[in-house]
């Protein structure tokens, strides 16, 4: 079964995405970048939905860079989810190797559609 890791400090967002995707995929959750990386290494999900602004020493972009830098994890598809809709953020995420970029408030159906298109 395809594993999807949802990383967001807000439980409501995690809940939203897990309800949307939970029927078809195995859902993992993390509430900060450090535990997300931990989960990535341990469970090697197919897709990571990664929030940009999170508390802690690392933010989403740092975690993205880490995932894409490591040969073991660089094949993982990462979609960034952010409240920051600025072009510069978008560009930075792309530069770091993000596979998609969703701006809050996003449509859970669109996210689900993107996930399905990637795993079909």
């Amino acid at each position, binding site marked *: 079964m395809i594993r999807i890791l949802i990383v967001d400090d*807000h*439980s*409501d967002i995690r809940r939203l995405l897990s*309800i949307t995707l939970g029927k078809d995929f195995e859902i993992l959750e993390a509430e900060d970048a450090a535990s997300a990386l931990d989960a990535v290494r341990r469970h090697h999900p197919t897709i990571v939905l990664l929030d940009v602004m999170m508390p802690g020493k690392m933010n989403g972009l740092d975690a993205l860079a880490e995932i894409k830098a490591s040969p073991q994890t660089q094949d993982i598809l990462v979609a960034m989810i952010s409240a920051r809709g*600025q072009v510069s953020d978008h560009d930075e995420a792309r530069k770091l190797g993000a596979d998609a970029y969703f701006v*809050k*408030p996003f*449509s859970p159906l669109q996210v689900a559609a993107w996930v399905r298109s990637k795993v079909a």
Partner: protein
Amino acid sequence: MNPVGPQRGLDTRPAVSASQRRISLLIGLAATALILLTWWHVLTLVSESRQREFAAAERDLGNLTRLTQEHAIRTLRSADQVIRFVQSRYLEIGDRIDLKALTANGVIDSEIFNQVGIIDAKGLYTLSNLPILNKLDLSDREHFKVHVASDSVGLFVSKPVLGRASGKWSIQMTRRITRPNGDFGGVVVVSIDPGYFSSFYSALNLGPKGLAALYGVDGVARVRKVGPQEAYGNKAPDAAMFGYISRGQLSGPYIQQSVVDGVERLYYYRKVPQYELIVVAGLETQDLLANHRQARDGLLLQATLMTLLVLALALAMTRHLRRIRLEMTARQQAQSQVEDRTQQLSAIFTMSPDGFVSFDQEHRVKYVSPAFADMTTLGTQRLEGLSEQAFSDWLAGLCDVGTPFIGVAALRTKVLGGKPDARELLQMAQDTRRMLQIGLRCSESTSVSQILYCRDVTHEFEVGQMKSEFLATAAHELRTPMQSILGFSEVLLHHELDSKTQQELLTIINQESGQMAKILDELLDLARIEARRGKDFRFTRVCLQDLTTDLVRAFLPPAGRAAPELLMREQPLHVMADAGKLRQALLNVLSNAYKYSPGGAVVIQIEVGDEAGPAPRAWIHITDQGIGMTPQQLSRVCERFYRADTSGKIPGTGLGMRIVKEICEMHGGKLAISSTLGLGTRVSLSIPC
């Protein structure tokens, strides 16, 4: 310089004016003294010259009259000699005396007289040296009559009379013939031609209006000769000399306008001793003073010229001095104006928060203002005299790599190329990390070619950054509940869910909508408080105990939690406060106390600090026994949207404590928070009372 400011300006004009007046006065006094001295000297000379002229004339006239006096005496004596001789002979020989023979043979000197004769006792002219055609009766003549009654007369000299016989003027000199028995025997008479005197006087050079005369003390002229004119018998009793003689002054000079012809003369008179006669000589003063006048006119002309010269010199000196003074005053004023301007400019440059660097015509640094030196932490380094390029290199060296300085020349090219407001934003690489905005203005002034100005925009830059950060944060915070609302409603619309899950999602949507509304409310509240800086606060006298009691009564603690405990003194404590705003602040703190404490008491304590001191304060402490905060969290608790809890389990906007802080400060109060992680938090508001 009243000028300045006018203000001050240092005005030296009164002093200069006073000193100038003093110098002008000195010059005036010196000039006046010089002129007075000149005139005094000249007038003295003139007066002396006049006196000398008069003295010389007096001397001459004195000598002259001595001569005429002598002449008169000699003449009269000679005549008297003849009279006495005839008198004596007549008494001896009576009518037999042959006067003609005596005259012809020279016994009697006839040179000085016309006739010599005898008038008998009856007054008939009986004998003469001239032929007598008929004996004239001369008994009515004065020179006869004076002798008839008395022998005391002696020699009588008559006034000039017009001869009945000769038709000529003559002066009769008579002596009485007294017979041995004392009877009157007639009179010896000698007729003297006054022309004898006048011809003598003609020899004297007295000028055209000079006078020589022989007067009787009776005031009648025996002979009066003025220039070529001679006259006999005219009366001048008012002439001054008669007065002098009557007072015993027998000779002397005097000046008088002639009572006869109106001519002013210097006279010298002499009484002829033994005769009732006066000789007088006079020189017309105008004639006498002709030379003196010429000399005097010359002197007066010289004095006048001298006066004019002195006046002209004095005037020129005064003017020159005034011009010098004016120039000095103008220079002083200009100098003081320049000083004033320099001070002003210096003050402006010193105090201006903006920095300036001016360049001279060769584009070398001419002046660096203190503010510029300060902004660039120049220290003791000197930039004056640096070329434009060297200055640009120096400034570029200070800049952070992110904001390289293009150089003054490039900036000038921009400015002259149609972008007069071109600015460069430079960040200093030094510790200060200052943001400097650099601009350039080109000048056509002869001393300054261009001015580089520099403004420290660090603060504006930081404020700008803070604003965009705030906006980003606010957007983020709003997007989060919006995400829940949008996302869960979409899920509800498109997914088949059991009713329990539906209920759960709707509850989330509802909560998040409320959260969004709350964020918006609090954002607006905060914006209003910050924008109006307390201007819409309505301060009234508020009793803190009443306010707090009401607040607690209305407060609904979370389910299962006890109401807050109140610890306060009975004595009412009043403060000036906006009751509504203060309640809002306390409510925020109280909500937090419950939100961040899973259990335990929440205590509200009111007390007064520094009650007897100069600034007493009311303290409201709200203490919980909750989760507490780390020092790092504590330091950020009043930032906008800062949430110590990031789990999302505790609802909140992150604006509450910020609002509390603003309200507290608008009351002139302070917010103090102490917290220990795991033990609880104490929030204290102080308000002046």
